[in-house]
């Protein structure tokens, strides 16, 4: 995915979420989004069955 693709995603996503973004913030947002998406891809490579439950994080 190119920087232009990511910039377009940031532009559309922030408009959708109603987050105002200044031009001077975009480079850092792009950097951090790219890092997060790399991590997400790393997780996605690990195949789990459909019935795998997410971790419990709430007890009551």
């Amino acid at each position, binding site marked *: 995915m190119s920087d232009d693709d990511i910039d377009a995603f940031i532009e559309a*996503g922030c408009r959708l*979420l109603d*987050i105002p973004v200044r031009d001077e*913030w975009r480079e850092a947002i*792009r950097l*951090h989004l790219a890092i*997060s998406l790399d991590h997400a891809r790393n997780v996605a490579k690990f195949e789990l069955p459909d019935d795998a439950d997410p971790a419990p994080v709430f007890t009551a």
Partner: protein
Amino acid sequence: MSAIAAAADIAAAVRGRRRSACEVVDAALAGIERSNTRLNAFTAVTADRARARAAAIDAAIARGDPAGPLAGVPFAVKNLVDVAGLPTLAGSRINRDRTPAKAHAAPVARLEAAGAVLVGALNMGEYAYDFTGENCHDGPSRNPHDASRMTGGSSGGSGGAVGGGLVPIALGSDTNGSIRIPASFCGIFGLKPTYGRLSRAGSFPFVSSLDHLGPLARSTLDLALAYDAMQGHDAHDPVCVARPGEPATPALGGGIGGLRIVRAGGYFRAGAAPEALAALDRVAAALSAEREIDIPEAARARSAAYVITASEGAALHLGRLRKRAADFDPDVRDRLIAGALIPGAAVAAAQKFRRWYREAVLRLFDEVDVILAPATPFAAPPIGQKSFMLAGKEVALRPNIGIYTQPISFIGLPVVAVPVPEAAGKLPIGVQIIAAPWREDIALRTSHHLETIGAVCAPLPPALGE
């Protein structure tokens, strides 16, 4: 070796009326006055309240009332923890508009119930989303061993205040490493308990499914005393387990006989600077831990923790990002905005992986009792440093200091970070002692044993050690 009074010694002296709580608190306040300009650890000093509380403790002891295990011990708390009468800043500018907290957070109230005396609130990275201790609103926390270097974060003021000898005990929080990293950089002990062990009620959240509170101190005994004082169920935190307190202090001297201690290899060796590996070697040798194991899929666990943190953290702050984005610390704001854009499917996948990973790691504890791993990949970097070399590749510093802490807190395991002095020249660095869930006692016993044989200790900061 310490010229800084330990909490256990202070409490014994106050209980024995060899020293008054008022004298102890006055000395602590004078020390904060003297050193805080250099360390920038405190954001608020509650001097009047502390003196009144100390006077009440002295009066109670004079009446013959029972004194608590932390009688007269000064302590301070990361400013994301509620302190009655102060707005809970969580390191931010935005939270300065909050009304002051009406009551202390549960762990603060419990420490006070044990006789400890709160002396103030501590600096931290904004909304706990840093590993550096840097903060654009309050200025960076500064490392007591070299004020030009980072304390680590996000409990940076907690690390600086204890490492610099301003208080013997501080309270911090740890979502991905925020107790263990300042403990490593500042050369002190830090306990991240099992997820759900200590109440987080009255603390400002970051990532609920990963947030923990815990103590930092200059010795294992002080760490255990503080930990024991804070244990117990609290219905105000839905994650806090209904489990009776399991005091660790009485068994602290039990030694390591019978414990199966191993060191983590693979992922936990890759990327570590020589000083981190030297510290791990020193601790492993002291414990005769020759066997090395692989924690399966640790790199992916770190990735999953990263994704969950970014997304849950962004969700928490979405309203503030919409209304007051320009008021955030830029280093935090840009990461939060990026986090808001992570697809939900990625977060669900990370939570699914989390269960798999938890079960895989828990199986390891059928064969071992303690796993050793580096706490940080290097010793404290200079304040302002933006990148470092990780396995031959230049990467951003702020998101990556926690590479060795994240795979552990991801599944809530209890960890004591122990300080190895002068592993990096004059700078200390920490090692993680990791145990099975609910076995803080084993991690603390191991830490105490290492301290007893002289393998680890909290080094004096130069201002006090020369």
